[in-house]
């Protein structure tokens, strides 16, 4: 059994994901995979990469599905999911070796590969399914929030964010300190009604999702004035123009 920090970290780094604009393009997932292939948990092993069942380690996966709604006619939702860096992370407390832990300084949940015995208890404990077992290495891997990128002076400032964030083509991903209510990222969550994924699991996730906004469907309150024909007949319309534009 492993302890969480005695006091929940003041600084809570995490992601804010805007479901209003995510198009499900997988840019975040692939850019994550490439950064982390040579990153903290390298490699992101792929088994049978050119064969019948190609599978590999991904810290971020996108699920696209349809939600039915009689009134609005349903919608297609694109839902990216990675570790939510929970305050009450069950993947940490369930770990028998101390390999899984939450950093005191910024709340990032990491795995110490040296101590991981590959028992997979954490992946069973995580209600979000956000852990990735590397069969080849025999250890559990997971989103590091690009801990080797966000503080790294070897990179220019604009690159010092998680790979999934700076690469997102639609700008659906934001990153920052969700423990600071005055941070830009907290303000974004407040203004857009950002929510916790599956709060009933009581994991107190740090990452937040911004819900899709009401769509401008042309329903009540957003209807443009109906177009009024200027004449009953086509000939009438043209005759009206002739009257109007010709002085003769």
């Amino acid at each position, binding site marked *: 059994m492993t302890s969480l920090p005695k006091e929940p970290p003041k600084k809570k780094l995490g992601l804010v994901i805007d479901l209003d*604009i995510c198009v*499900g393009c997988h840019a975040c997932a692939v850019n994550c995979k490439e950064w982390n*292939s040579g990153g903290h948990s*390298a490699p992101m092993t792929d*088994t049978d990469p050119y064969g019948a069942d190609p599978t590999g380690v991904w810290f971020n996966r996108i699920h696209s599905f349809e939600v039915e709604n009689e009134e609005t006619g*349903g919608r297609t939702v694109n839902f990216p999911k990675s570790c939510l860096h929970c305050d009450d992370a069950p993947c940490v*407390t369930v770990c028998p070796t101390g390999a899984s832990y939450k950093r005191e300084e910024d709340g990032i949940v990491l795995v*110490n590969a040296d101590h991981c015995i590959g028992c997979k208890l954490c992946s069973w404990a995580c209600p979000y399914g956000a852990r990735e077992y590397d069969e080849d290495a025999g250890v559990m891997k997971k989103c590091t929030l690009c801990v080797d990128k966000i503080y790294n002076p070897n990179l220019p400032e604009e690159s010092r*964010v998680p790979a999934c964030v700076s690469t997102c083509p639609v700008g659906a991903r934001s990153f920052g300190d969700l423990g600071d209510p005055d941070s830009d990222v907290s303000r974004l969550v407040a203004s857009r009604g950002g929510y916790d994924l599956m709060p009933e699991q009581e994991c107190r996730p740090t990452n937040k999702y911004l819900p899709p906004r009401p769509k401008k469907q042309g329903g009540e309150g957003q209807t443009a004035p109906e177009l009024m024909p200027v004449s009953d007949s086509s000939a009438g319309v043209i005759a009206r123009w002739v009257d109007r*534009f010709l002085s003769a």
Partner: protein
Amino acid sequence: MKDGIAARDPRVDTSPVVSDEVKFTTCYMCACRCGIKVHLKDNKVRYIEGNPDHPVNRGVLCAKGSAGIMQQNSPAKLKKPLLRVGERGEGKFKEIEWDEALELATGWLQEVRGDDPARLAFFTGRDQSQSFTGWWAKQFGTRNFAAHGGFCSVNMAAAGLYSIGGSFWEFGEPDWDLTKYFLMFGVAEDHDSNPIKMGLGKLKTRGDAKFVSVNPVRSGYSSIADEWLGITPGTDGLFVMAIIHELLRAEKIDWEYLKRYTNASWLVVQAEGEAEHGLFARNATGTPLVATPDGKLLPLSDRKADPVLVGSYTLPSGQTAVPAFQLMAERYLSEEYNPDAVAARVGIEAKTIRRIAAEIAEAAFEQEITLDIPWTDWAGRPQQKMIGRPVSMHAMRGISAHSNGFHTCRAIHLLQMLIGSIDVPGGFRHKPPYPKPCPPGPLPAGQETAANTPLDGMPLGFPKGPEDLLVDEAGNPKRIDKAYSWEYPLSAHGLMHSVIHNAWAGEPQEIDVLFMYMANMGWNSSMNVPDTIRYLTDKKPDGSYKIPKFIYSDAYHSETVAFADLVLPDTTYLERWDCISLLDRPISSAHGAADAIRQPILAPGRDVRPFQDVMLDLGVRLSLPGFVTEDGSALYPGGYSDYIVHHERTPDIGPLGGWRGEDGSGQGRGAANEAQLDAYIANGCFWEKKFTPEQSYYKFANKSYLEEAVHMGWLAMPGPVVMEIYSETMQKFRLAAEGHGRRQPPDHLRGRVADFFDPLPLWYAPFADADIDKGPGYPLHAVTQRPMHMYHSWGSQNAWLRQITARNPIFLHADMAREKDIADGDWVWINSPHGRVKAQAKLMRGVNRNTIWTWNAIGKRKGAWNLKEGAPEATKGFLLNHIISELLPPREDGYRYSNSDPVTGQAAWYDLRVNIEKCAAAEFGETEPMYDAQGPADLDAPPDILRYGADLKGEESSLAPVAMKDWIGNRAENAAGATGIAPGHGNQTTERHKKEKE
């Protein structure tokens, strides 16, 4: 858990050294051409990210671009030139040296050139160097050249260029910052990949605009649309014309814009049966005439002319003439285009069509934008403001890949012209070098070809009338693909999809050498794969192949490789020089002109050569003019990079616009600069020249812009680009079909030309609709879409991307499936009049009820791409291509047209009509048709496990970590929304940016 193990990992290094060096170049994982920063470690790619300064992608990078590492690492990369030793298609080759390969190719090509250069068909696929390869074809002397545009989106290009002097796809963009209403037609996950995603993100985050997606499928971009209209495929033109009907009836049109910037006021001769019928009335010097409110007729050039758009006038000749606008209005005011009349066919309720029309009108006219930017029009008249109609549109393959796509695209442009929204604030904006004159130039060359003689111009161009067609005295096609013939007169990008069939059939000519590059014509880039394979392998009675010689260049072991006689292996995009040129398809935006280069950042490590270097080498070996000096030595001995710097198309204008002139100060124009490529590299491999605010809109009539365009060589004259609601060019072809003029179509084509060369946009049912009631009936539409993570990524052998999609189901509406007793996961037969293919069903609701669809180009042939036995791409992935005929059903006389648009020759992929039936249980499990495995082309076996990056982890740098910073997606737009967020971009707030500048 207060008493557990208190854990930490002391080894977490937050400041590792990431790479040995970072190099800039341009992505080529699709056609978007984003700027990338490639981090290299030990001569391997450690990380690829978007270049934040780049005008195309501003730092973002999509899934494909991010998977570039695995494209570079692909075990399907060809390693050495290959000479076929078995039968075609067997995939049996022997490796040969480059010298032998090039001598062989030279021998074949020399013989052709000395006889008739047109017996070479040179088609270059997804080539981004067409101004170079087209010039090669010209200097060789063959008219039989094109790239892949004919099976991609020539309908968008041609309809746009013949209507507004510019086009959708990459040649224009919505005014993402100012538009209030964005209507997107037939764009799924693809074109124009990152710019569209960035734009949609901004627009949606701003929250004051509406995004409507017109698409049979609710996926990708459509999933975030405010309103999704699941239209019936091929009916978009009717939908647009019904909107035009509504706008005209309610007078919601921009009269002033139409008068000033379009040919709406030009008088059209009305003399049915006469040679001038439907042409513009002109004065003695050829200037079009307009009518004034008092009934006078004045030449357009008369400054006093304030033209009217309606009325009927008598010309000095005694003939009657009416303004083009009136002809247009009469057509679309007709009850034929009443929303009630089209709703059932379009699959959108009449009240919805009316509401969309009302919303467009409201956005265009009630939310008018006024920018306080003074400008001067082409005639020198000062304008105080820029008026904007904030309605923008974008359309792509869903429009273009139908046999009615040209007219449908023209209808969309007509709609934009009517509301005055082209190149105005909030509307659709041109990207330089567009707008071009309308109709565009130059003409296609190749009326005559002669032994050892270059063509007198570039092979691809834009006919302005029947006299410009490439046909013989009898009216028969001259080109192998029948481009610029009476069958497809405005085929501005050629018909690559017709070449293999026609070369096999020897119709209209036989060829000796087929030379192709970067298009998988032996598989997913061809319609009718089964017969295409037969055409490539069929023999004459004497045992020789019907297509005598086939040279193919590709970087990977695609399905097409196995059919080639000689394979010239190309490099990857990270191993070569390229230029993305203003002579061709630049990276400009509406904000300015831009071009870019690729630089080799990795050594190939195998015996392959960049295709463009090879073409230069062949040019020297063949002694082509322009490739050799007087003594016969290479004019560009340094290869393609030498050409990029030193080639001049016209004096002082070459492939790259930046850093020209000896001192590098020239922009767009200037002598060659030896240090040009260094300057590009220092600037992140691109060059951009931004417009002044005054030049930013109304470019078609903006003096300052037009003068700049002339200086840059984009336009010959600073005159206005007059947009064409009425196409006199089209009418010229129709008149010829009706028996006028020196050059007329053969009798069997008169009806076809007369029908489809309507000077106003027209809607007709896609040709394949004729199949609906045949045999068992084919009531359903079948279309494909590109997955965003694979669109144009040149093959799904990519180890990462194939983990996302390695098989493709057939998607169908759940209600329709239920009627047919089809459940999720069942196998079904998809039957077309041409054949059948087996696929696994996936049920959904966000799809037009009568449409089934799948992802494009996922299915692979067994053994290709160096995938292993059992790869799902071959067993569960499938192509609809198998059941799309490349020819239409025979006419009465047996003749078969290409399955293409009759105006442009665009491949009509999405016309396909099908039915589906559930397979018998015994047939479940694997797709059909199933082809034999292709040979391995002597490639190494792919790995069973990939630990890429295990050796790339960075060493500690001993640098102290720096403070992290918030990053807000769409920061500027979110900040504007009263959220309290600091404005700026990403993690760069405006305040910090200012400080850094100080």
